[in-house]
């Protein structure tokens, strides 16, 4: 029944990629300039792929909707990037990184893909250092590391709280070099609005020039989609305002399967919601959990007093605080994986212990006072002061914290007007990352031949929950070290094809699809703004397809989204014209796709009658409230096939996951 061939190579897990790579077809250097490749998106995956393919000699066209490729949302990743270098001599290895990632993903990712990721992780660090990425270093001049959730080693490389920025600027510099050399043509302020297929193969895209509004045809022998995740389906998320699913959804509508859409990561440490006009949520890096301890009051009356401003958190005695992660998960403590930490915070707030004075009382503390004291004492000792005063300890401790997390503390203070050096941060989980995405095989090729998908846009490596500092690793692994090989293998059959013309019926048809969708928006003449509908979609998704899901809620969500879709197309108002810079039109086109996707997420969550990773069904939990997986019935990738405008008709295909090298077990962080 399955149409899904994952193309996982035979052989031992540690040899699969090497052997496979050695047998892939190549394109000779003299043939590469005859071949065109389109890359959509210029985050870590897109920039690194475009730069690498340009270096190889292909003609590359790269597209981004922002005003510069450097603005892609990879820039905002804070904490770090994992690599199995074992520089800290704490027992790390490729196998450990592989194992941690599979376990962290709650046994819903492919072994072969994840092992490949772990294998190339070390090369990424080497490559980035060679590019001049200024990672944090120790006094001896060597690279520093820290810990992230779901691991017991220190394998995370970082650049203060701006690791994503530094890695993206590294990839952007490599891309810029190729643009300067004429190997890559850069199209900024351009948005891909459809894919063009000829004889079943991806042969180009239709893009809108966002400044002039012109609809452009671009042909290529292969198309790479690296357009990030779809967290903005919730309206409020840590994603950038422009992050969207449109490119991924357009290829889905043209035949690419969409896999595990319900696997969404809710990140535990974000700044709580403040009000109705809020446009986005801000992450406080997971790296803070190296130093911060998460707690709520032990007594409900204390929580209430705090919410009402009668009690300050710093006044609450140590024994009156419930460090609930340390209590429930002593082995990993505050560094449990994200899904586990988020659910634990929700459990406490649902039970009435939340400390935030907003509508929902949803908030818990992330407290640095213990770390400030302990690092202050260490620093004083290192200076030869074995009996430091209280003031000295605090001063040195705060200095240490500032050096590690200064920019995060500053950002927190700007947003909340509270000083986290003096009072604990208030945090609550928020939508952050999507593990689901376009289904791809081992080559990162979607079910449309010639259309590859990389980075967060694909589904492949993180299962049902991504570990911290692994998104940057995957983006760069895909772009630098996987696609150059697998795309070349595909292109080896294209050396005789010649330039692909754009004056063909296939391009015409795709262009007409785009134009009619734009006309439909602009001529609608409804009464409500795009944001009005987007916010309503977000509320349905957060309340019914969020951290806790159940059969009834999901069924309601499916109906409510169907109704919302009808209302949207009947009543949305998009001002302006198609022939100019029109941000409302851009939003409208994106929200239309997010509505469809939201419905598919609810449908996917409904069929997955188990809890795993970020997907928590209230019906499937053990007596301690932990996820209850059902490996017998749900150890598969759910890949959905588009069947027309009615999303409820999408057809489910299952790719069975095989665990040959890791023994599948219940996740335990206790």
């Amino acid at each position, binding site marked *: 029944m399955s149409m899904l061939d994952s193309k996982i190579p035979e052989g031992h897990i540690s040899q699969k990629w090497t052997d496979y790579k050695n047998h892939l077809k190549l394109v000779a250097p003299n043939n590469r300039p005859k071949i065109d490749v389109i890359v959509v998106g210029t985050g870590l995956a897109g920039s690194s792929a475009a730069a690498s393919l340009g270096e190889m000699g292909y003609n590359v066209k790269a597209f981004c909707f922002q*005003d510069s490729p450097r603005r892609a949302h990879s820039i*905002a990743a804070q904490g770090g990037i994992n690599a199995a270098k074992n520089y800290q001599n704490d027992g790390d290895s490729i196998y450990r990184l592989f194992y941690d990632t599979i376990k962290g993903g709650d046994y819903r990712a492919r072994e072969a893909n994840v092992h490949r990721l772990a294998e190339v992780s070390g090369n990424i660090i*080497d490559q980035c250092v060679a590019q001049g990425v200024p990672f944090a270093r120790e006094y001896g001049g060597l690279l520093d590391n820290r810990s992230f959730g779901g691991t017991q080693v220190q394998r995370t490389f970082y650049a203060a709280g701006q690791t994503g920025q530094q890695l993206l600027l590294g990839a952007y510099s490599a891309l810029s070099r190729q643009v300067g050399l004429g190997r890559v043509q850069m199209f900024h302020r351009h948005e891909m609005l459809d894919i063009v297929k000829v004889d079943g193969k991806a042969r180009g895209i239709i893009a809108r020039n966002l400044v002039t509004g012109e609809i452009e045809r671009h042909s290529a022998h292969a198309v790479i989609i690296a357009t990030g995740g779809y967290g903005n389906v919730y309206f409020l998320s840590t994603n950038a305002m422009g992050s969207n699913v449109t490119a991924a959804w357009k290829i889905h509508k043209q035949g690419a399967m969409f896999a595990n859409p319900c696997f969404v990561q809710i990140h535990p440490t974000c700044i709580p919601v403040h009000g109705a006009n809020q446009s986005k949520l801000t992450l406080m890096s997971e790296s803070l959990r190296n130093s911060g301890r998460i707690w709520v009051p032990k007594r409900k009356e204390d929580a209430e007093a705090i919410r009402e401003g009668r009690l300050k958190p710093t006044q609450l005695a140590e024994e009156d605080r419930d460090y609930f992660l340390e209590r429930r998960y002593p082995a990993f403590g505050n560094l449990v994986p994200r899904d586990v930490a988020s659910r634990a915070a929700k459990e406490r707030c649902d039970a009435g212990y939340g400390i935030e004075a907003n509508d929902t009382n949803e908030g818990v503390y992330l407290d640095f006072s213990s770390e400030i004291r302990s690092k202050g004492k260490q620093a004083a000792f290192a200076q030869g002061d074995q009996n430091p005063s209280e003031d000295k300890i605090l001063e040195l401790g705060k200095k240490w914290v500032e050096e590690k997390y200064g920019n995060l503390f500053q950002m927190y203070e700007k947003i909340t007007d509270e000083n986290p050096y003096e009072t604990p941060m208030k945090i609550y989980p928020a939508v952050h990352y999507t593990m689901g995405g376009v289904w791809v095989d081992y080559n990162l090729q979607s079910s449309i031949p010639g259309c590859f998908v990389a980075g967060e846009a694909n589904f492949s490596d993180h299962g049902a929950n991504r570990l911290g500092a692994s998104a940057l690793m995957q983006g760069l692994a895909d772009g630098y070290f996987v696609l150059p090989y697998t795309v070349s293998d595909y292109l080896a059959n294209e050396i005789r094809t010649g330039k692909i013309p754009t004056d063909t019926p296939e391009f015409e048809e795709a262009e007409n699809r785009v134009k009619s969708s734009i006309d439909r928006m602009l001529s609608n003449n409804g009464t409500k703004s795009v944001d009005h509908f987007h916010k309503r979609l977000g509320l349905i998704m957060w309340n019914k397809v969020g951290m806790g899901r159940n059969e009834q809620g999901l069924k309601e969500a499916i109906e409510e989204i169907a109704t919302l879709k009808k209302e949207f197309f009947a009543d949305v108002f998009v001002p302006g014209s198609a022939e100019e810079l029109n*941000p409302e039109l851009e939003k409208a086109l994106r929200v239309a796709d997010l509505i469809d996707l939201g419905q598919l997420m609810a449908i996917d969550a409904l069929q997955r009658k188990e809890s795993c990773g970020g997907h928590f069904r209230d019906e499937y939990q053990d007596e301690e409230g932990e996820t209850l997986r059902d490996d017998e019935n749900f150890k598969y990738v759910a890949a959905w096939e588009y069947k027309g405008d009615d999303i409820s008709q999408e057809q489910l295909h299952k790719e069975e996951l095989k665990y040959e090298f890791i023994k599948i077990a219940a996740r335990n962080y206790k």
Partner: protein
Amino acid sequence: MASKYINITLKVWRQKNANAKGAMETYKLNEVSTDSSFLEMMDQLNEQLINDRQEPVAFDHDCREGICGMCSMYINGRAHGPDTGTTTCQLHMRKFNDGDTIYIEPWRAKAFPVIKDLVVDRSAFDRIQQAGGFVSVNTSGRTMDANAIPVPKVDADKAFEAAACIGCGACVASCKNSSAMLFVGAKVSQYALLPQGRVEAKERVLNMVRQMDEEGFGNCTNTGACEVECPKGISIENIARMNREFLKAALTSEK
């Protein structure tokens, strides 16, 4: 902090497109939460304009957490508004008072032409980067081990501080000469401070400075406004370092 609501008057630069003549327009906006960011206030204005069947104000923005460098407003005569070390998305309405009139304009510089309303074209920065802002190393997976060359922590930290530039253009907008030397100086410094960047240091600084001049940015006259308004606190030491690198390269270049 308890949130309050304020009523404000906005004077906003409206310009249909690059060729049209622009003008300041006045809007009244009520019930703005002081917990809102400046851009959330702009969202609220646009929602009001849409409800009144008027065209919303176009402005650049994306990450809304102070790192993408996309937001670019000149507010009450200052790049990113009345706070230091901030982008517009991280500026909050609690910095304003009930009854305030707020002036909002685009970046003004010859090298940053207005596209529409508050949106400007900063692709000149990309072209400067393309001229030399990189280390010429191909993707290989066979570069040397990342720890093969120790880098003194002081140098690594300084390189990082320079590399923290978000490319927003506030330095250019704040400079009376519309100079881009803080932006270029930061990029030149990042690489000049690291052993990986030293190999091409001469060519890099010559090429980037040449491109900067071609784009029509002005020269630096050491006023220091750029440093004051830089949301990431990039130091003008970087300009001094670029000047040293440039002189050294210009005097000893073999080309």
